[in-house]
């Protein structure tokens, strides 16, 4: 057992081995091959949730497309909350990053002449989404992982769960982590730490996210004193399968799929998203942005125009007119998932769908280098909020985001290492305290009446109730109260599993603490934002209010553990706030 002494020391430690983490690791290895880099991840890298991304990755490459148009689509998609300097840089660097993935073997779908093929995507005015059929994230992740194996100086701590960042005087010096296979607790020193742990869909009951998406990196940063940014913006993807929440990619609509209500009517035409046409029209109807499509669903429910299912109201995704050949070429995974999990063949049948929590626009506050306010601490990917996504992320911007900002954070961390300082003695004390906390408060405690699974269920229900597609002050306030009560009950959770080896109950307890902290931030930030913008729609403040709220909200952890919210200006470069126009 660790007494706070360092079991290992590295120049840079990546927490999380998904797309952002692996891209950062390779960037560091290429920037300075002498640096000692390690990746610690609670799952094997190829299990990371990047693997589930389906539709594609946006990057300007096609003839007739321009950088400025991708920038504008992203800004208007973000409801003007994205930082325009970050978006400009992101859009300019995305094609190069996607080409780099091509050189590393990613099997991008191609045109007949061998060049990269692109497809349409929601909220994008041009075809610019690179894709590998409908398993884009899977192929990107495996290409990155397999490429990372070239670098034999890269250390990996597979199945290591980080419980604490060691920070002194606003400077990071390492982490404490549980080695899952043995249950041993280790202190790992690192001059720089990059958080790449993905999102936190598991704050909600119904999500496309994998079991592992518990906001670990966000919670680690938050507890270490770094602010989270724009946490109220939770993306509901309009098309999830009703029982499982499994994602049916937006590419299904990009290839020409229609959304139908119970009368077989393409209802999006009633929500200022354009008029139905047989062929898809960019930035129109089914190719509108996700926030608007999910909101339209709620109105259809209110009008009684959705169908009932055992899992709540649904609408239908109609792919039948696309034909078997197109579906098998461009959307084979959609067909596989529908056949397996709904026993429905989309070639011949309608696919039942409903909106589902998919992505966090918010995350650890970083600058355009991925740097957080804590020296040496960086974040990239869904964990981070730069922000390019603002109030609503466009589909196919998250995969290039994790590449662009993963690489940038890696390079920035590699530079930082040269100026890093040695860890002061207090760091060992912090580490020893954390080891004691884990030993005493979790593993050593008699299991009380409270169960992880029960508190988790109640948290998720409270979040769905209070922070859904539409929210309001009273609903969020009620949610805050419930979470406060759950935080108290969390103190009485013991781990019934006394075996140290692969103790998944311990992991679940640690994850639940993380999600509870994140849930509180989502609600506190949401209460402060008294307007409706993008994915944050308040029935008590139904209009966008640029006068008061064209601003980011930063959430800090207060002394008593409750969140404090501050403001940070949005960076506007060339695109003054305007109306979001789709379909007209």
């Amino acid at each position, binding site marked *: 057992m660790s007494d706070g002494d360092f079991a290992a020391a590295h120049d840079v430690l990546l927490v999380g081995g998904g797309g952002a983490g692996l891209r950062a690791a390779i960037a560091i290895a290429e920037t300075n091959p002498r640096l000692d880099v390690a990746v610690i991840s609670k*799952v*094997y890298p*190829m*299990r*990371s*949730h990047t*693997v*589930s991304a389906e539709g594609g990755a946006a990057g300007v490459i096609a003839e007739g497309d321009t950088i400025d148009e991708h920038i504008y689509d992203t800004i208007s998609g973000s409801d003007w909350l994205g930082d325009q300097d970050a978006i400009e840089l992101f859009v300019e660097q995305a094609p*190069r990053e996607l*080409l*780099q993935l*091509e*050189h*590393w*073997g990613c*099997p*991008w*779908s*191609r*045109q*007949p*002449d*061998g*060049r990269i093929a692109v497809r349409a995507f929601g909220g994008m005015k041009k075809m610019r989404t690179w894709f590998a059929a409908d*398993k884009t994230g*899977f*192929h990107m992740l*495996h290409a990155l992982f*397999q*490429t990372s*194996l*070239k670098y*034999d100086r890269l250390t990996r701590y*597979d199945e290591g769960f980080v419980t604490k960042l060691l920070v002194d005087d606003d400077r990071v010096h390492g982490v404490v982590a549980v080695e899952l*296979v043995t249950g041993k607790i280790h202190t790992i020193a690192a001059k720089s730490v990059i958080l790449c742990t993905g999102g936190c869909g598991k704050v909600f009951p119904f999500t496309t996210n*994998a*079991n592992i998406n518990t906001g670990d990196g966000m919670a680690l940063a938050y507890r270490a004193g770094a602010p989270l940014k724009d946490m109220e913006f939770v993306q509901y993807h309009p098309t999830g399968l009703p*029982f*499982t929440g*499994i*994602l049916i990619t937006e590419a299904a609509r990009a290839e020409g799929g229609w959304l139908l209500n119970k009368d077989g009517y393409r209802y999006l035409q009633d929500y200022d998203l354009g008029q139905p046409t047989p062929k898809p029209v960019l930035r129109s109807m089914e190719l509108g942005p996700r926030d608007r499509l999910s909101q339209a669903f709620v109105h259809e429910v209110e009008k009684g125009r959705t169908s009932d299912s*055992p*899992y709540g109201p649904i609408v239908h995704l109609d792919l039948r007119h696309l034909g078997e050949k197109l579906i098998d070429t461009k959307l084979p*995974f959609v067909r*596989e*998932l529908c056949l*397996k*999990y709904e026993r429905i063949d989309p070639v011949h049948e309608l696919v039942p769908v409903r909106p589902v929590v998919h992505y966090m626009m918010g995350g650890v506050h970083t600058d355009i280098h991925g740097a957080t306010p804590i020296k040496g601490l960086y974040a990239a990917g869904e964990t981070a909020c730069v922000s390019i996504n603002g109030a609503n992320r466009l589909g196919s911007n998250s995969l290039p985001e994790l590449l662009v900002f993963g690489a940038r954070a890696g390079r920035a961390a590699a530079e930082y290492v040269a100026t890093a300082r040695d860890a002061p003695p207090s760091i060992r004390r912090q580490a020893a305290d954390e080891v004691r906390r884990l030993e005493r408060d979790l593993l050593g405690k008699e299991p009380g009446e409270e*169960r*992880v*699974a029960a508190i988790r269920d109640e948290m998720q229900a409270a979040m769905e109730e209070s922070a859904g597609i539409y929210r309001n002050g009273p609903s969020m306030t009620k949610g805050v109260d419930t979470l406060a009560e759950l935080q108290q009950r969390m103190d009485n959770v013991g781990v*019934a*599993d006394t*075996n140290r*080896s*692969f*103790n*998944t*109950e311990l992991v*679940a307890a640690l994850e639940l603490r993380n999600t509870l902290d994140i849930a509180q931030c989502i609600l506190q930030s949401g209460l402060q934002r008294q307007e409706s913008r993008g994915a944050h729609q308040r029935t008590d403040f139904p209009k966008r209010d640029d006068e008061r709220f064209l601003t980011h909200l930063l959430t800090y952890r207060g002394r008593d553990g409750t969140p404090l919210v501050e403001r940070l200006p949005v960076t506007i470069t060339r695109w003054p706030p305007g109306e979001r126009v789709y379909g007209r």
Partner: protein
Amino acid sequence: MADSTGSIGLRVSRYRPGVDDGPQWQEYDVPLRKEWTVLDALNHVKNGEDPTLSFRWSCRMGICGSCGMNVDGEPRLTCGAFLGDYAPGPIRVEPLSNFPVIRDLVIDMTDFMEKLPRVKPWIIRDEEMSIDEGEYLQTPEELDAYKQFSMCINCMLCYAACPIYGLDPDFVGPAAIALAERYDLDSRDQGARERLDVLIEHEGVWGCTFVGECTRVCPKHVDPAGAIQRYKLKAAKESVMAFLLPRGSR
């Protein structure tokens, strides 16, 4: 929630290191719901009756490769194995065969993780093209040539099914060989020679007696057996086969 139609028994293999001498069976009863998979049933147990049951899972949509277990003796992704297909039960759930067991249903796959880099599963080129020059051209037909082998999710089902790996853990094994072939067949790659050097040595491809179990159990239709067969042909063309064969039993 949809109605369940009665219940079904789970016979789950438990093993706690330092406590149990070996694996032992534990019985659970779970609702038999038509939309539930074996993974849903295990989570039902873990979230209620028995939080100490340990197993890996993540995406629950057949793409992350975490939740492979033996279900009624067959290697399966438990997120794709529906309870109804095993009615009336009981359903036997065990860790994947041929691997050391860490705990309960969790296997130790470090052997694969160490073998994978040996087959150099990355693009190898004599000369790298600059990113500024754009993409390597690759026609849809060239993509199709290796696409199938690029679908491997590293779920380890093929290793659990492979009788050779069971007898000879030094065998590189189906998934790693399929991934080597994936890069060999990629028009952008020039590393086939290097990989062949690795695979014709020692326990590379020769261990395989072409049982084909790997291909049969693969949830992603990768056909590792086909990849192994192709390697044997490639190696035979090298006409050094007899010289390099490590054993005389074939």
